[in-house]
């Protein structure tokens, strides 16, 4: 096939598989060193004691895990994390879907403007968002409390009350995440077959009926994807805690990733931090398992 027409000696050709591995090498090296290896390393370290001042890790079996299992603070953090996820994922999901349905039209004027105002928070650093909202939530002088005072209520100081701190943070996060999820719903909606809708309309289907019988079922794969994305995003969220509360009051706003950060970089206990990292990895794994039930998996291999 590769015969030279003039009969000259054909130069050596690199086998295709060798070429592939050379091209893949940089990506694979980075992924192995900074994704695969650290997963294994946290697994290994979680079985050791390795506190500040220790020269090297010392094997202690499952002691770290047992320690956390017995720690009320650990369970409090887990409860906070679950509570915060529920408070953010569910509203962000429905608001995101609602916004997508709202802006999924070409007929209305100013669509770009609406989309822009729903999506711009995604472009802002979480640190910046938290700084703004911290002042909006500030006790008495903050925007929220001033509004309440004007309406004749008592100032809440939502960030310093253990009952309101997570819901207050959740409102902020839903405001940011809803516009992001809107995008996925929008892309899902736009891939739906237009003819189905025209047919439904001709058949005299009401908009609500069309939504329930056509839009929702066809949107199911998107729905699953969005739920997983929203859950993962919510679990990864930590920046705002550094700015707003540092876990206060009394760890009422400490979430798992912030707890990991504290163990590692405030208390300098790498082994306990690794143990929590393993817990986090297991949670992420369980969350993403949902993907396997999605037909997304098919896409990866063809």
């Amino acid at each position, binding site marked *: 096939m590769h015969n030279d027409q003039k009969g000259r000696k054909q130069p050596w050709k690199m086998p*295709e*598989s060798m*070429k*592939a*591995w050379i*091209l*893949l090498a*940089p*990506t*694979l090296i*980075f992924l192995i060193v*900074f*994704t695969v*290896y650290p*997963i294994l*390393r946290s697994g290994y370290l979680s079985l050791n004691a390795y506190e500040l001042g220790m020269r090297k890790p010392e094997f202690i079996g499952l002691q770290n895990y047992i320690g956390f299992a017995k720690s009320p603070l650990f369970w409090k953090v887990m409860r906070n994390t679950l509570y915060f996820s529920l408070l953010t994922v569910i509203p962000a999901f429905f608001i995101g879907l609602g916004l997508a349905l*709202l*802006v999924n*039209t070409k*007929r*209305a*004027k*100013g669509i*770009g403007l609406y*989309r*822009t*105002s*729903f*999506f*711009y928070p*995604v*472009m*802002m*650093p*979480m*640190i*910046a*968002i938290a*700084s*703004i*909202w911290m002042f909006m939530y500030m006790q008495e*002088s903050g*925007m929220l409390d*001033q*509004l309440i005072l004007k309406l004749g209520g008592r100032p809440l100081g939502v960030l310093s009350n253990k009952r309101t701190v997570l819901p207050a943070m959740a409102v902020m996060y839903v*405001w940011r995440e809803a516009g992001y999820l809107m995008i*996925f719903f929008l892309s899902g909606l*736009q891939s739906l077959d237009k003819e189905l809708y025209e047919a439904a309309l001709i058949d005299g289907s009401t908009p609500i009926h069309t939504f329930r019988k056509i839009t929702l079922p066809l949107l199911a794969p998107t729905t699953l994807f969005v739920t997983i994305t929203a859950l993962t995003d919510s679990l*990864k969220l930590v*920046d705002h805690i*550094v*700015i707003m509360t540092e876990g206060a009051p009394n760890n009422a706003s400490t979430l798992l*990733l912030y707890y990991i*950060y504290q163990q590692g*970089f405030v208390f300098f206990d*790498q082994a306990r931090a*690794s143990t929590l*990292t393993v817990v986090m990895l297991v949670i*992420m794994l369980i969350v*993403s398992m949902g993907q396997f039930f999605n037909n997304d998996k098919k896409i990866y291999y063809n």
Partner: protein
Amino acid sequence: MSLRKKVNPLYYVVAITLSCLFLIPLVWMVLTAFTKATFVMKVFPHENWTLDNIKYVWGQVPFARYYLNTIMVVVSTYAIQFITITMAAYALAVLKFKGEKLVFLIIFIQIIIPNDVLIIPNFMTISDLGLTDRKVAIMLPFLGSAMGTFLLRQHFKTIPRALSDAATIDGCNTAQIIRHVYVPNSKTAYISFGLVSVSYHWNNFLWPLIVTNSVENRTLTVGLALFAKSKEAVLQWTNVCAATFIISAPLVLVFFIFQKKFIESFVASGIK
């Protein structure tokens, strides 16, 4: 489109009200950043315009340096990702080789487990390599991108084989085929991933906070956090808003100008 109806006026009421609600934090931040400090926080600051807050914060915090650091990190990260994902995507989209499943497994792992979760072991690796407090430490974990590779590979697959076959007959080698056939035909994928990458790294906070320790290497987000947590900033909402404005303005502004492209890109990169 033949069945088009008039838009219900109620639609505009809902859409405009919601848009205004979403815009409140941004509007409040910008107005506060550009008005004189008052004793009590204003719900709607609209008088005593001033640039003093911006000037004060710019003088107080080395934001110019942080800007430079952030731009260096963001640009270099994307430049290197551009090369790594192009190479990997070509191998996965075009070449046949054994072990493809293993490669997909590794890519899949990074899609499930984002680097944000691996701060502890990755920090240890960075300090083992003696790279703490270097800009390269901020970038390293992100230089191979599963998401970018995958996105680009999907795009490469849509490019007809005939094009690269023609190039081969013309005497192009693999590097030339990638450069002259695949890269120029995948502009949208590169832009999509570029926007996602740039906004992620511009906004990233925890990792740069952990691995940097000096003004020479800190990014904007870390600078803002340090300022917002400092004694000078307590109750100084005008100054904190000014600082917030300084660090978030470029990206938000660019987004407002190119919103259509941005949203399209996020839509494209979202379908993994």
